[in-house]
């Protein structure tokens, strides 16, 4: 009976107090496996290093950092496994205020991501292109400029009590607040 309950809970969305500690444990797992520093945006740099070694910033032995590429490949596989075998049918719950607001822009709910924005069809609209390609560019450019993303700064950096990471994390939040509350309404109205 307990096993049945757990199996059912596994298929439901996991609460924050389960997910947070598990994400926190990824960091010591990588350290104990091979003294690897938790950070995901570095993988994007290694990809550039593999393709474009003539630029000094990308001129290093990326193969010695290949573990990072295996790590992100694993994240991709984790996405496949969860989508195929670990998901119970049902719509993703969204705050009613947000549902109402998004409906005003013609954006529906249901899955993990709004299909009205993240689909190949949307990519060929100005609004979709701006969000998908423009947003991606900002993520990659900003993360490298800041020297890390949410994993390297907010989790690894804060856990090791480094104040530059606290500055970076506060700026991540400030940028997000600015986008969500002032710029996004303009973009979604396009």
């Amino acid at each position, binding site marked *: 009976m307990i096993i049945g309950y757990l199996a059912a809970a596994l298929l439901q*969305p996991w609460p924050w107090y389960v997910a*947070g500690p*598990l*994400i*926190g*444990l990824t*960091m010591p797992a*990588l350290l*104990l496996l*091979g003294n*690897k*520093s938790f950070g*995901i945006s570095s*993988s994007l740099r290694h*990809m550039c290093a593999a393709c474009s070694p003539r630029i000094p*910033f*990308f001129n290093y032995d990326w193969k010695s950092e290949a573990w990072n590429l*295996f*790590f*992100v490949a*694993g*994240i*991709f*596989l984790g*996405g496949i*496994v969860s989508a195929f075998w670990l998901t119970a049918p049902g719509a993703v719950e969204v*705050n009613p205020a*947000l549902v109402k607001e998004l409906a005003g822009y013609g954006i529906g709910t249901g899955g993990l991501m*709004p299909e009205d*924005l*993240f*689909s190949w069809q949307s*990519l060929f609209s100005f609004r979709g292109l701006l969000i*998908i390609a*423009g*947003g*991606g560019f*900002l*993520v*990659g*450019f900003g*993360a*490298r400029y*800041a020297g890390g993303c*949410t*994993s390297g*700064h907010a*989790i690894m950096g804060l856990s090791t*009590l480094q104040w*530059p*990471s606290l*500055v*970076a994390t506060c*700026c*991540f*939040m400030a*940028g*997000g*607040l600015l*986008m969500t509350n002032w710029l996004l309404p303009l973009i979604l109205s396009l």
Partner: protein
Amino acid sequence: MMKHQKIPVPVYAGLTEKWSGQKWYYLFRYALVGLLFGIVFVKAEIISWYRIQEMFRFQSFHMYGVIGSAVLTGMLSVWLIKKFRWRAMNGEQITFQKKKFHRGQVFGGLLFGLGWALTGACPGPLFAQIGTGATVVTVTLLSAVTGTWVYGRYREKLPH
């Protein structure tokens, strides 16, 4: 004659050697950690665009709970590793890199935040989103790689 023969390597040193990470297939253990990490990303809906929107609108505690408890768990782990001087499986002493402050953490951080709220994903979730079948996110990922490249190319001209 026998006295001058090479001393055989002790068994435990062989064990360390086995885990030294020199062989490429040992890299698969990082893929396994990634796999579990990716499952948590999807199952806790961290890869959901809606969860990120709720976070930046203060409409849900979920993401704050996730990040907050992850940091607390991380702090506790680092404290344990330092206190008991745990070593990595390959025998290496665990090291923590010191991050140096530069203005890039402010400018880059703000730009990253803008992108995070727009795409509803930081770099990790991008890979998981593609895995769940959102194939158009490959374009987001390629754009992020392009962004990284542009930073690397024009790095000298940017204020740091």
